[in-house]
């Protein structure tokens, strides 16, 4: 196991380096420059500013310099948010995005998994149809539509919860809810399909033949075997939600990371783009790693070869 983890960590570092390199060079091919109001600045001033940020050097030199700083954990100073370190910006925005995102995932799993199970067990009944409807709506209604509706009705019209802004835990409920609908829908869909498949398996019949009740059969034998596909989609879904909540963050006026990412690309904030990309990549790589470990925990057949029980 130790060997396997070490191997994976090395791969992760290499992957991260490849992503960083690609992003670095691709970013520089973006049209425009990091300078604001370029046409109003004199050429001398432009040169002076570029020199200050090291942007007058040839690209390979910039690359080497960037990596030197990266190795000591320095992501540089943002071009856009005046004088603030990129690491600080991430440290400020990410906890907010992560808070909303994790809550959304939690709600999604806690509601979606039982929903999928019930739909499978009551296949073809009104309950199943209702669950399917929820799943279809959840997948097809964009989260920002729901966000706007929730903000308007729950926040403004009924005044039950804050319509926006960031502050207490109450502020996180509506954004989390709007993000969780997609998770609920995806979980319910995948669990339902897989559960139906598993319930038709021979070992379920074996379990029934032992005299176990329906609920024990489902909880002890069927559920665990139905989890693999759900876990598989949970990874990308998680990344999607932890990072891609831009629109929802915008609607609720939350100082999360989504806003920062888009903004940094729009204004050619090179250090910002690099910082956020690297951070997201690291997150994705770690999530994938964790999911690979989870597979083994759920299904012993997927455990890494050579690992003794």
């Amino acid at each position, binding site marked *: 196991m130790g060997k396997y983890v070490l191997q994976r960590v090395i791969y992760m570092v290499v992957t991260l380096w490849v992503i960083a390199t690609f992003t670095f060079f691709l970013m520089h091919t973006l049209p425009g420059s990091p300078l604001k109001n370029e046409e109003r600045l004199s050429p001398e001033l432009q040169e002076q500013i570029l020199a200050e940020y090291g942007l007058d050097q040839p690209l390979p030199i910039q690359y080497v310099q960037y990596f030197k700083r990266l190795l000591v954990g320095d992501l540089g100073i943002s071009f856009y948010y005046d004088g603030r370190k990129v690491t600080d910006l991430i440290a400020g925005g990410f906890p907010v995005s992560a808070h909303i995102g994790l809550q959304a995932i939690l709600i999604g799993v806690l509601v979606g998994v039982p929903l999928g199970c019930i739909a499978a067990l009551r296949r073809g009944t009104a309950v199943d149809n209702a669950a399917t409807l929820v799943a279809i709506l959840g997948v097809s209604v964009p989260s920002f539509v729901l966000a706007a509706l929730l903000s308007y009705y729950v926040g403004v019209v009924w005044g039950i919860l804050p319509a926006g802004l960031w502050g207490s835990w109450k502020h996180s409920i509506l954004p989390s809810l709007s993000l969780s609908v997609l998770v609920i829908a995806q979980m319910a869909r995948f669990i339902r399909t897989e559960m139906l498949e598993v319930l038709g*398996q021979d070992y379920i019949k074996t379990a029934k033949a032992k005299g176990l009740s329906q609920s024990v059969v489902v909880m002890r034998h069927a559920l665990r075997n139905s989890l693999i596909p759900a876990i598989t989609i949970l990874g990308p879904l998680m990344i999607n939600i932890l990072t891609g909540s831009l629109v929802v963050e915008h609607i609720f006026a939350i100082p999360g990371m989504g806003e920062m990412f888009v903004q940094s690309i729009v204004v050619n904030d090179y250090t910002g783009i690099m910082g956020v990309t690297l951070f997201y990549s690291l997150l994705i790589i770690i999530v994938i790693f964790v999911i690979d470990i989870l597979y083994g925990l759920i299904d012993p057949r997927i455990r890494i070869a050579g690992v003794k029980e």
Partner: protein
Amino acid sequence: MESLLEVHDLHVSFDTYQGEVQAVRGVSFDVKKGETVAIVGESGCGKSVTAQSLMRLISTPPSRIKSGAILFRGQDITRFTEKEMQQIRGSEMAMVFQDPMTSLNPTMPVGKQIVEGLIKHHKVSRERAWEWATDTLQMVGIPSPESRMKQYPHQFSGGMRQRVMIAIALSCSPKLLIADEPTTALDVTIEAQIIELMKELQKRLGTAIILITHDLGVVAEIADRVVVMYAGKVVETGTVDEIFYRPRHPYTWGLLQSMPRLDQEKSRELRPIVGTPPELIHPPPGCPFVPRCKYAMKICQQEMPDMACPTLSHRVFCWLEHPMAPTVHFVRS
């Protein structure tokens, strides 16, 4: 001897989009304490459906027990509630399935899979159940059972898994073991071992066995009595000797003819039964074997024959048994 199980005129149907498929159409037989009854017949004759109906394991819908009675120790279990069925499943009657590769839960150690039935039915502590289960594994011939208990099904071979299945089935000492083609998925040497094991355990525990199979070799090896099924009906039943040496139904003749024999000349080809069984959506009014029967008469197409009893244990459903029918002799070629 006292009957453990009596099946009376059992009808089981599947509701499909094409219509009602009458998979089992009036099956009757009985099993006495401690004996082995084999149910034989080709694929789709309703033998597995019959077996699973006995434990009410067929899923409803689409399938349902339409009519008939299943008397287990004198009680009609077709009237049992699901709760009552759960009480006797595993404890009074147990089942071994065809494919050991898929019949065990892949994500649960085998020990746990044996223990759950014990805990459910005997209300013993986890530790006691674990010891008990370890002994059962030993009994079915799995070496070093203590360490094997903690392993997962994929760490066992096919034959070993079937032994585990038998251990699960026998852990609560059931009165009746239903084995649904227990050796079909195994290779021949392992098949012999499993049959030998079942025979030995039966002797030791006094469990009655219903063996579903299409392998007449296995039947000859283990069964006391045989029920021959065709198209959802019983066509002939009798002791092993009666079925093998004095068969009276043309379908049984066909089955025996299509079985390879060691003492037969090499040049002689096996004789398959030509044709296919009827569709059970619209079962024929008469004997279902008519289209494939060399000896079919006019009456065979119109009406089901009555039961004939050449001996006390032998039952045949064939118009050839009628006093007015021509005499036909089965000569084993």
